[in-house]
């Protein structure tokens, strides 16, 4: 019998708990202040438009909906970016972030046999499963520094430098999952320097564009920085969080190549990988994205809704920080909560402390100490602060 998934299994356990104060800070799915799931207004509008138009349900091409592929690349790089103007990006619609990462992993296994992927320590729990199942070896670069609850930048640079030439380096475009700790713009430049020096290939996981800072462009700046240097890179995108399309499974894999000819070749091989996996991707989510991003009114509305979502998360961060600072007399510095960005926060709680959070306080989170701020309401910040303080100080 296989063990339950460490991330998705948390929600299952939460559902089974009937304690009145229970809090689900497990899965990274956005919740409103009332802790309800949220379907964006622009999404509802797009779906109604689609229904009115009476779109058919024919098979998409293997590479997905052309209109979606166009807008997703433009969103990531900016429509006037050289990589787009020069048609140097191979874009294939994928099954959200996971599916897009998997297509890229399969491409790496086939065309760069023996090449490794370097993943951050820690990283999203499913990354290693994806590379394992795709047959791609991986190892880790230092990332999280428990002493500062911040970035171990020197360790990161050293480990990237030490990797054999031509290693794929998996980077989180923004809002690092699970830590919430992102490099600064200056640090990104240094990371790009080292990657170029070692002829490594950058591989971005972009699951939170617009969701981290509230600005689509700002959150894409790391990717654009690398592209501006003329580098070749891979980028997996997801619309699960920023458009709330979790269950529709909509994303894309983008490969920026030196020439448009090479991009055509890469795209054709990504198709060859997708066909025996699921033949062609699902239309519904792709159409929603194409309709929202392709219509300037809906696009602007989307940006507003996204700012609201990102704003709510930033405000519960502040409230949690304030509650922790007010209630904790130990003098511990909780400001890392404010410095982190995105849906998640790495609390620094260890496994035993995390278990205490669940068993004593009915707070559900993943064992690595990650909490999803998207699942936290303003009203529950004080309760959560009590739970964290108790677990941190009274459990070892």
């Amino acid at each position, binding site marked *: *019998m*296989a*063990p339950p998934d460490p991330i*998705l299994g948390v929600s299952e356990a939460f559902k089974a708990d009937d304690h009145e104060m229970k809090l689900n800070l497990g*899965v990274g*799915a956005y919740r409103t202040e009332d802790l309800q*799931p949220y379907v964006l207004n622009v999404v509802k509008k797009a*779906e*109604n438009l689609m*229904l009115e138009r*009476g779109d*058919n*349900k*024919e*098979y998409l091409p*293997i590479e997905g909906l052309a209109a979606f592929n166009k807008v997703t690349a433009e969103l990531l790089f900016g429509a006037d970016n050289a990589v787009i103007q020069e048609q140097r990006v191979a874009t294939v619609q994928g*099954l959200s972030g*996971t*599916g897009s990462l*998997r297509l890229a992993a399969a491409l790496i296994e086939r*065309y*760069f046999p*023996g*090449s490794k992927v370097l993943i951050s320590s820690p990283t999203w729990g499913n990354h290693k*499963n994806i590379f*394992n*199942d795709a047959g791609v070896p991986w190892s880790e670069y230092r990332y999280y520094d428990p002493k500062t609850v911040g970035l171990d930048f020197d360790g990161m640079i050293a480990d990237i430098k030490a990797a*054999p*030439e*031509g*290693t794929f380096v998996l980077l989180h475009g923004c809002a690092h999952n699970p830590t919430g700790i992102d490099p600064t713009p200056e640090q990104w430049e240094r990371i790009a320097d080292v990657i*170029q020096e070692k*002829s*490594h*290939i950058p591989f971005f996981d972009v699951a939170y564009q617009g969701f981290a800072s509230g600005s689509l462009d700002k959150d894409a700046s790391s990717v654009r920085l690398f592209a501006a240097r*003329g580098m*070749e890179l891979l980028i997996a995108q997801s619309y699960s969080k920023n458009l709330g399309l*979790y*269950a529709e*499974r909509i994303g894309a894999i983008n*490969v920026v*190549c*030196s*020439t448009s000819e*090479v991009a055509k*070749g890469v795209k*054709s*091989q990504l*198709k*060859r990988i997708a*066909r*025996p*996996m*699921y*033949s*062609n*991707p*699902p239309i*519904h*989510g792709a159409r929603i994205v194409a309709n929202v991003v392709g219509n300037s009114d809906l696009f602007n509305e989307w940006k507003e809704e996204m700012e609201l979502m990102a704003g709510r998360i930033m405000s519960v961060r502040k409230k949690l920080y304030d509650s922790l600072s007010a209630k904790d007399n130990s003098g511990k510095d909780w400001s890392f909560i404010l410095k982190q960005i995105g849906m998640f926060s790495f609390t620094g709680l260890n496994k035993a402390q995390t278990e205490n959070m669940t068993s004593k306080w009915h707070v559900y989170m993943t064992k690595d100490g990650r909490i999803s701020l998207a699942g936290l309401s303003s009203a529950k910040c004080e309760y959560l602060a009590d739970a964290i303080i108790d677990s941190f100080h009274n459990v070892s």
Partner: protein
Amino acid sequence: MHGVNVSQSSSSPADRRLSALVRHLEGSSMDSANHSIAAAPTSGSTGARISVFDHVVRAPEDPILGVTVAYNKDPSPAKLNLGVGAYRTEEGKPLVLNVVRRAEQMLVNDSSRVKEYLPIVGLADFNKLSAKLILGADSPAIQENRVTTVQCLSGTGSLRVGAEFLARHYHQHTIYIPLPTWGNHTKVFGLAGLSVKTYRYYDPATRGLNFEGLLEDLRSAPSGAIVLLHACAHNPTGVDPTTHQWEQIRQLMRSKALLPFFDSAYQGFASGNLDADAESVRMFVRDGGECLVAQSFAKNMGLYGERVGALSIVCRTADVAGRVESQLKLVIRPMYSNPPIHGASIVSTILKDRTMFQEWTIELKAMADRIISMRQQLFDALRGRGTPGDWSHIIKQIGMFTFTGLNSEQVAFMRNEYHIYMTSDGRISMAGLSSRTVPHLADAIHAAVTRVA
């Protein structure tokens, strides 16, 4: 690769890029002073525009889906697409079933609906209803909780997940597929880690089933081997075993502990009757044995692009089914995490509502009947033209496709001279025909058979 002595087994990424660079340089007319062998390909130097992906060759179009690509490029007003198996109306248009539109409207109007991640195994209602649809509502296997059903990405996704599971957890890694079979089967199973062998199936002489050959080949398969069976409406031939033949197949397979893996992509579409089209599967399940079934709702509900399907694994005990399900989740999570909600919600809405279910069966029968009538019309048209040969297979074969028996030269001739598109094995999709276009197709076949060897 000229002049570069790099042994494949020991080449480092840098060596491979070096050889790619050399290949690039040898074809290049640029000033050699601009090229330094030491230049890192990803270094943004504006010189040679070298790529780390340079060795990634352009793949040809998928042979089945490539037919539509070629068709789309053809400017002729007489063109006819008989390639992909997607249903077309008498007017030649794609069809979204009325009951599907209604279900979709209900879903979009329901303000309580959310888009939260489905569980890894998919929508629970959908899974239960899909299993009931294929196995029968009164199936003892379902009542005894011996079936695990997971939502997957249509037929392809269900086959792939099932194959990956077998490659990891089943003691035999060989799968026998019929000759011929759907073009994508070999790649799906191969990439999942299974080794693919064939069993005789189609007899070109009779344009029917080579039953003796089939039995011989399954008889000589190693004990425990996996056997792919098309539940009904065999693709590409349209040739199905009779009930009596299915029973013989079942007995033989069970006597050798061969594991049945059903591909059910046309339930209800073949005969127009959902139960009749599921009989082969139910026959195997009734004997208490184990099997896998990949179900697709692409054709029978017209949900092609929504990618809705299910993999059911019928096990000996409920305990085994539970453990199997937990392992299926480990295959799915690193592939795409969890399946898409929209199509499955449509299916679930229809299957659980008695009125909508009824409506669906009526619309489904109408599609199946139209195809049967196209078969008759084409047969009559060829007989009317005195086209040489026995064309009765057109009305004997079942389902969306007809294996015409035309060879690849004749197929090419029909494309070039008559702008008729089909796969090179001579398979035509009857769903793409209409009363209006049957004469054109009959003319083309007649010309191909009389003018091309």
